[in-house]
């Protein structure tokens, strides 16, 4: 699914990633661990095409992220540090908006179904700004899934979630694997990450220290 070879990313003089070689199989759940500044977020952003690699080759499902970014974006869902939600739209409108951006057929029905899945079915008419942080986090996860992406990227998704939200997240990750979806998530909680992933990769100073 993912083939990264010699991936380097620099910001000015700072090397955020140095020569990353990584292969992820289709349907695999991979956890990225590492201290702050290790390069976890940068790697996820490269996979989501929000950043371009400074060097190296990165393909997702055989598609080069530099040559065919649009086709890659159609396959990827990202839950990042920002939830990319509009505070003035309702939860339902938010998913409808992103569904239309991603070209989802029957976006309205898809939005309604996702809201039920993430436990926000009875909050669909509330504006995003009126939702709690945990509810916004759940809506952000729903947003990332609106186009049913084969690859789901989660950057510290357990942050800000209450117990119910965390349970939902765990069901999502475990269910994604059973459904054949590839999931890569980052976390600071090594034990939690190990429980919900098939493999862990430890990043340190932009390099892989342990696979």
């Amino acid at each position: 699914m993912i083939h990264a070879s010699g991936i380097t990313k620099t910001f000015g003089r700072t090397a955020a990633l140095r020569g990353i070689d990584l292969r992820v199989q289709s349907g695999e759940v991979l956890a990225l661990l590492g201290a702050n500044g290790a390069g976890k977020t940068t790697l996820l952003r490269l996979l989501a095409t929000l950043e371009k690699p400074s060097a190296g080759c990165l393909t997702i499902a055989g598609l080069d992220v530099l040559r065919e970014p649009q086709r890659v974006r159609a396959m990827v869902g990202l839950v990042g540090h920002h939830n990319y939600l509009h505070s003035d739209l309702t939860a339902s409108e938010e998913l409808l908006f992103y569904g239309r951006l991603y070209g989802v057929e029957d976006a309205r029905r898809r939005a309604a179904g996702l809201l039920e899945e993430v436990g926000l079915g009875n909050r669909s008419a509330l504006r995003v700004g009126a939702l709690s942080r945990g509810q916004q986090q759940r809506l952000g996860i729903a947003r990332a899934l609106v186009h049913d992406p084969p690859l789901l990227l989660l950057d510290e998704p357990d942050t800000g979630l209450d117990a119910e939200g965390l349970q939902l997240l765990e069901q999502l990750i475990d269910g994604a694997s059973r459904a054949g979806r590839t999931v890569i998530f980052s976390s600071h909680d090594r034990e939690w990450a190990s429980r919900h992933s098939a493999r862990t990769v430890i990043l340190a100073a932009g390099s892989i220290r342990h696979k």
Partner: protein
Amino acid sequence: MGRQIGALLWKDLIVELRRREQVLSLAVFSLLVLLIFNFAFDLRRTDLAAAGPGILWVTFVFTAVLSLNRAFSVEQDRGTWEGLLLAPIDRGAIYLAKLAANLAFTLVVEVIAIAAFTTFFDLPSNVLQLIAAVLAGTLGFATVGTLFAAMAANTRAREVLLPILLLPVSVPVIIGSVKATAVAFEGVDASTGQYPWLGLVLAFDAIFLAVSFAVFEYVVED
């Protein structure tokens, strides 16, 4: 692409309808500018044709610059810009949607400004010619302005940088629009008076619409 442009435009319109930040504040700004001009100039009918077009377009240009400054910066400040970049949509679609939204907000404010202008001064001789000049000029300014607003949004000095980038490039459309508007005030035959200037503005609109659409991707990508 049409569906995606529609979704983006719908989102911007809904957000503005609910927040009422942009149009209201810009309308107040334009009214203040016209009020200052009203006290600065004691225009009689004959003087109106000489100063009226300039008064209108000073108001429109400054209002449009304020509006354009917010077009992309508000998305970045609220953390929603990358949500758009994550989606598999042509970057040109984002440009066209933002252009349409900017145009809609600016035209609403211009209608309010023209109404105020009529109250303070007087209505031009030929309203249809005025409408043609305003539409063509606003389209041209918004076309270039939307592109430069995207460029400036990534900088720290965006409020200063946008007018520095935009105004020199917009000189042809501003001059053409002022001249075309002057014809509306003078009541001169459009075919000899206004069409040449309108033609200049519309040519500018077409060229920069095509160029901006083509280069927008390179402006917003890393």
